[in-house]
């Protein structure tokens, strides 16, 4: 019978698990990676199809994936089915938990928006008095951001804004299209900056763990991986007080097995890592675990039309590309209705406009669609959600998943701070657009339900004080020195930025630290 003790057990294979595997194995440390889902074989698992070939004409199976707004009938099989892995919430406080268990996790479908947090996030309490500061600053993470940006091949434009730190970018030399220039000039009159988007180019349009991180780890010969196994719990060696074993179940056969490890690195995604620790009843002497669930508001925005691009006059020079208005509120002045800030994504294109932008039908609608074709210009908010202790997850013992593992109950909601922020974003964006001469077609002030952004963060926050935080500044458990949690659960505040760059940089930094501690014999 096999009874090996692995050096480092990594649970999860997304950006954070992949980064830890790459760094640790390249330093000569043997790792075993467990992943809850299968390895996607894209040529075997996919086919190009027309919507009419699908059973529901592209509508997706009714009732399937009600919380995954991003799903459609083409991609429905890539998301975790909540009948198989359920979670609960108050019906009046919905939460969209969007999950992927394929090997590589959600990194397979990442939109590749690549931003750093600034000290307006890391030291937010110092700036405005709310919440808590992180135990690290941008300067601590900057060298790791730079390395991650190099691996991911981030393309961007230097903006020289303290709230939007520049980085190790591949220069974006594409010219601004005509409509963006007009929007930008209109924003400048209000002292609102606009920058080119910052995007990971990756390889062939994919910036995933499976093509940027894990190949390097496997190339060392130091990484082994087991797909289709779901970790049920971690246990502690009573003689050492350290975590030393993971108990998992085979997804298909339901065979129960265990593996021993000297170090455990949790990278299962914010809420799955927290769920595993809560089920294991570990690393929570602070009582903070599960609390301070945060994310970002999405869904509020507006759509408009650029008059000069109508009636067949749309060109790439006038209508193409995207841009971002980075946070500009509560930087040098103080808003009365909300703390922190938001960014606005802005994009234009030469394609068609959605029919729901016109309150008409039939031949009249068809005429509108033809006239307005190629003139669409839209924006959407990415806004910070404040960290609040009452927004939390806990184990729902009465509800178990398909393998008998207790589920999560998620309790979170937005407050006036988020709603006022969303309203300000839409109103301000529309004023800029109208001043630029664009016609507003549709607007929406209401954020999508919490979780929609797929940027769930917190619940194992880091901090210097073991009484008020789960992890130290190295993503290491205060309670168990051989346990590291390196996904988004360590976040103290969310910021407005897509968190992938920060998660990856933190994972790299934690892995560097872990390797050094192992070399010194401290772990």
């Amino acid at each position, binding site marked *: 019978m096999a009874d090996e003790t692995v050096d480092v057990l990594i649970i999860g294979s997304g950006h954070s698990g992949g980064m830890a595997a790459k760094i640790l194995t390249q330093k000569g440390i043997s790792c075993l990676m467990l992943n809850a889902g299968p390895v996607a074989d894209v040529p075997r698992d*996919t086919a190009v199809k027309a919507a009419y070939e699908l059973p529901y004409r592209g*509508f997706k199976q009714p009732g399937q994936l009600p919380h995954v707004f991003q799903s459609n009938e083409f991609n*429905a*099989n890539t998301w975790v089915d909540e009948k198989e892995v359920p979670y609960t919430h108050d019906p009046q406080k919905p939460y969209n938990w969007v999950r992927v268990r394929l090997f590589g996790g959600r990194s397979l479908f990442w939109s590749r928006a690549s931003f750093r947090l600034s000290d307006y996030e890391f030291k937010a309490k110092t700036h405005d008095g709310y919440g808590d500061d992180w135990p690290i600053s941008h300067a601590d993470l900057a060298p790791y951001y730079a390395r991650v940006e190099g691996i991911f091949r981030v393309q961007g434009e230097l903006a020289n804004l303290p709230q939007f730190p520049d980085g190790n970018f591949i220069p974006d030399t594409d010219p601004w299209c005509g409509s963006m220039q007009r929007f930008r000039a209109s924003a400048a009159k209000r002292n609102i900056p606009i920058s080119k988007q910052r995007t990971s180019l990756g390889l062939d349009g994919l910036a995933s763990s499976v093509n940027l991180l894990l190949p390097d780890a496997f190339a060392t010969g130091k990484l082994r991986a087991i797909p289709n196994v779901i970790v049920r719990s971690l246990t502690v060696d009573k003689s050492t007080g350290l975590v030393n074993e993971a108990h998992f179940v085979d997804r298909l056969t339901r065979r129960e097995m265990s593996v021993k490890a000297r170090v455990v690195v949790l990278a299962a995604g914010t809420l799955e890592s927290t769920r595993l620790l809560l089920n294991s009843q570990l690393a929570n002497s602070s009582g903070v675990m599960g609390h301070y669930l945060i994310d970002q508001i999405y869904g509020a925005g507006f759509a408009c039309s650029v008059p000069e691009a109508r009636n067949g006059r749309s060109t790439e020079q006038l209508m193409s590309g995207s841009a971002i208005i980075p946070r500009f509120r509560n930087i040098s002045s103080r808003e009365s209705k909300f703390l922190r800030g938001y960014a606005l994504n802005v994009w234009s294109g030469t394609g068609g406009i959605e029919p729901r932008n016109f309150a008409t039908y039939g031949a009249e609608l068809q005429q509108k669609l033809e006239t307005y074709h190629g003139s669409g210009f839209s924006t959407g908010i990415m806004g910070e959600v404040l960290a609040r202790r009452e927004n939390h997850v806990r184990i729902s013992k009465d509800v178990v998943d398909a*393998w008998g593992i207790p589920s999560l109950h998620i309790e979170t909601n937005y407050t006036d701070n988020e709603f006022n922020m969303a309203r300000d974003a839409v109103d301000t964006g529309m004023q800029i657009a109208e001043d630029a001469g664009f016609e507003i077609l549709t607007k*929406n002030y209401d954020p999508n339900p919490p979780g929609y952004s797929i940027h769930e963060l917190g619940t194992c926050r880091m901090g210097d004080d073991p009484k008020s935080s789960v992890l130290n500044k190295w993503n290491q458990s205060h309670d168990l020195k051989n346990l590291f949690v390196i996904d988004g659960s360590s976040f103290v505040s969310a910021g407005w930025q897509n968190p992938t760059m920060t998660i990856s940089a933190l994972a790299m930094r934690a892995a560097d630290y872990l390797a050094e501690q192992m070399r010194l014999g401290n772990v």
Partner: protein
Amino acid sequence: MQRRDFVKAILAATAAAPAALAQQQAVPAATPPPPPTAPGPVPWMRGLMEAKQLPIGLLVADSLARPDARYLSDRQFATLRHLCEIFQPSSKGYPGALEAGTPEFLDFLISASPADRQHSFQSGLDRLDSEAQQHFSTAFASTSPQQADQLIRPWLRTWMSDHPPAEPYENFINLIHHDIRTATENSQAWSDAAHRAGKQTPNVDLYWYATDPDLHREGHSLPQIQNHAKA
């Protein structure tokens, strides 16, 4: 069959042979069954592997077959058909919603939908019909385009993705409009029209099959083994 079982079978046959011979001398001695063929290419498998792809093409059943069952009542279905005619008539060589089989498809889609969606859809159709009776003393299915417009247009709204109107009747009118357009433009009839016009089928994308589907089924019990977490 394992080799051990195979040996047992031979021994059993040998032991039974004298008695069998005593009863029926004419029957030849029992011979053991041949060992099963190992998995691998057998002649018909080779044939399958070498068979050419049949020219079945991309034909879906609802492009030519009629559904045998209907979820909506006759009255509701007639209302839906008229809405389809009004919201998306045929235009410039492309089929309208009726030609695309949209009423029949939406009837099926609603039949498979959660109860709240079914209620919203059916009560919306009923209200539309009721308002036609109230204003024009006729079923909605028999209203003129002008009459139908008076009933529909006040409820039309613009809306952003994921945020259809919240008021229930506004929600019904705007979502059914969206669904009629989507079902029509995602039909094979629409695709055929696009090809006739020298254009490509719209809404073509990468479809993901289920990857190693889970074996869990209703009623399937977990192994009755104490796991470590419980130990």
